[in-house]
């Protein structure tokens, strides 16, 4: 057997017939590899450009998740088209899809924080056209709004020009925040009428999440924040809509008792603020509705979300069945971003939906669920 193989090998090596065939064969195989490399490069190039366009699209669209002026998915499509066209990739709206999601990735209409998108395109092949004329490439991407923790941020004035701009440009509104009784982790809650709600920074919240232990109406009206010339000198709940849209003024002087113990340059030294008696459920909702139905808050296309600045007060003052109103100290602020897009779409402002985008420690508030850090939101790409 071994002899036979050796003989065959000897004969084969001596035989020069078919040498050209071998060379041509090798050459064709080499050509095949060249073709594969080239086509693979083209596919890679398409996929990279499409991924870039997809990322750009969701980053742009995610800014409109709370917008009343634009829809996030529409914005994403516009940016996907723009980027693909600029990179000479064929755009087809039928191959683009996007949807808004909650933080767990489920399709949601309330408090959407994530925008995901996908695009697919047929990439033509050249060398491998004999095997298959084209391959379909699909890319997916998602962008999400996430809270950014910034240690040591000062309460008002901060180090952030963005926040100041929102305070003045988008209008600030006041809504008293009361502590939820029986919940040691909560600094405050959002009362709209006699509703008490706990909050966590960066989480969606609605006024439907009421605490059963909420103070009753009559004692828990709005804080008497006023001194905006537009709305007069005594607004409280009686002219809530105006306060909402015009803000409380840059230098509110509604202190019940003044003090110099506060530590913010942008907030007047104010030891306590008078509350208004009564249930301000109605005025608050009317105000939210009026705000949300304003298509463009400040005639500035850059900013189309409404952020409500809410003072935080010490919850213990309201517990224990107090009668009549009582001046309260403001111990911090929270920025509550209204989910106008959802409420407008359903023509309902009861309950009020939104997200606490920033919670500001002010006078050494304890029990803040996020410690001493305060957060602002940013948009990042996620898997």
């Amino acid at each position, binding site marked *: 057997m071994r002899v036979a193989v050796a003989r065959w090998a000897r004969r084969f090596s001596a035989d020069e017939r078919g040498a050209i065939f071998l060379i041509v064969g090798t050459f064709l195989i*080499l050509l095949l590899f060249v073709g594969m*490399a080239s086509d693979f490069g083209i596919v890679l190039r398409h996929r990279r450009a499409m991924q870039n366009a997809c990322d750009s699209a969701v980053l742009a669209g995610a800014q409109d998740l709370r917008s009343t002026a634009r829809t996030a998915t529409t*914005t994403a499509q516009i*940016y996907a088209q723009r980027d693909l066209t600029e990179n*000479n990739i064929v755009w087809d709206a039928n191959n683009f899809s996007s949807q808004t999601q909650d933080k767990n990735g489920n399709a949601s209409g309330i408090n959407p924080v994530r925008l995901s998108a996908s695009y697919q395109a047929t990439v033509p092949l050249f060398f491998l056209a004999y095997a298959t004329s084209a391959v379909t490439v699909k890319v997916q991407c998602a962008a999400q709004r996430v809270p950014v923790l910034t240690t040591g941020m000062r309460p008002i004035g901060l180090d952030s020009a963005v926040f100041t701009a929102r305070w003045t440009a988008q209008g600030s509104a006041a809504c008293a925040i009361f502590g939820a009784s029986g919940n040691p982790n909560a600094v405050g809650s959002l009362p709209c009428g006699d509703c008490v709600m706990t909050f966590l920074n960066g989480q969606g919240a609605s006024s439907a999440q009421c605490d059963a232990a909420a103070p009753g109406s009559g004692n828990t009206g709005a804080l008497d924040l006023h001194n905006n010339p537009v709305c007069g000198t005594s607004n409280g709940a009686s002219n809530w809509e105006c306060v909402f849209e015009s803000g409380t003024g840059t230098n509110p002087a509604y202190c019940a008792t003044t003090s110099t113990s506060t530590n913010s340059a942008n907030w007047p030294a104010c030891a306590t603020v008078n509350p208004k008696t009564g249930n301000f459920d109605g005025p608050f909702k009317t105000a939210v509705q009026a705000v949300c139905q304003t298509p463009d808050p400040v005639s500035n*296309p*850059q900013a189309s979300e409404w952020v409500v600045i809410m003072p935080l007060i010490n919850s213990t003052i309201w517990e224990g069945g107090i009668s009549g109103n009582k001046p309260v100290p403001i111990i911090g602020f929270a920025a509550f971003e209204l989910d106008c897009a959802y409420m407008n779409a359903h023509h309902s402002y009861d309950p009020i939906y939104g997200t606490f985008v920033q919670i500001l420690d002010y006078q050494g508030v304890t029990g803040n669920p996020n410690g001493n850090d305060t957060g602002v939101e940013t948009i990042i790409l996620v898997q």
Partner: protein
Amino acid sequence: MKQQRGQSTVELVLLMPLILVLVFLVFEASRLLGSWLLITNAAREGARYAAVQCVPSNSAGVTQTCSTGQDPTSAIAQQVQQTAQFLTVQTATTCTVSGNSVTIPSSVTSCVAIAYTQDATTGVGVVTVRVAYQVQTLMPIGSLPFFGTVNYPGYQQVTGTSSMRLEQ
């Protein structure tokens, strides 16, 4: 004429140029793709930086957000330069842009173009960063699909374009 010794050597010599062309074609195509990826990534990082951190004033109605005393254009170009890493992107001269085609001025071999526009549909500001770079080819190859066209012999131009919405 009956001698067959050296026949395969002659065949190899005849075929060698073709084989070499094929090998170098793959080599050059890979280099171009690699450069294109780097340039595209640089353009994207530049646009992201511009969208998030450094918007010059009076463009699309936005107030300046760059650090004080910082020239927005050079800051963005610097970001592009840093991201491109192995490729030295020249930022002294701005690219000539016409539609989607980017041309490198004759005096340089690479360029960056930054443009701020207002999106007609959504009314928001958009930054577009375009980076063009001439990859020196080792062989005189012609126009390749998708990679660009020959500027002059020995070079292939790769272009990266990225648009981002300003985050304000």
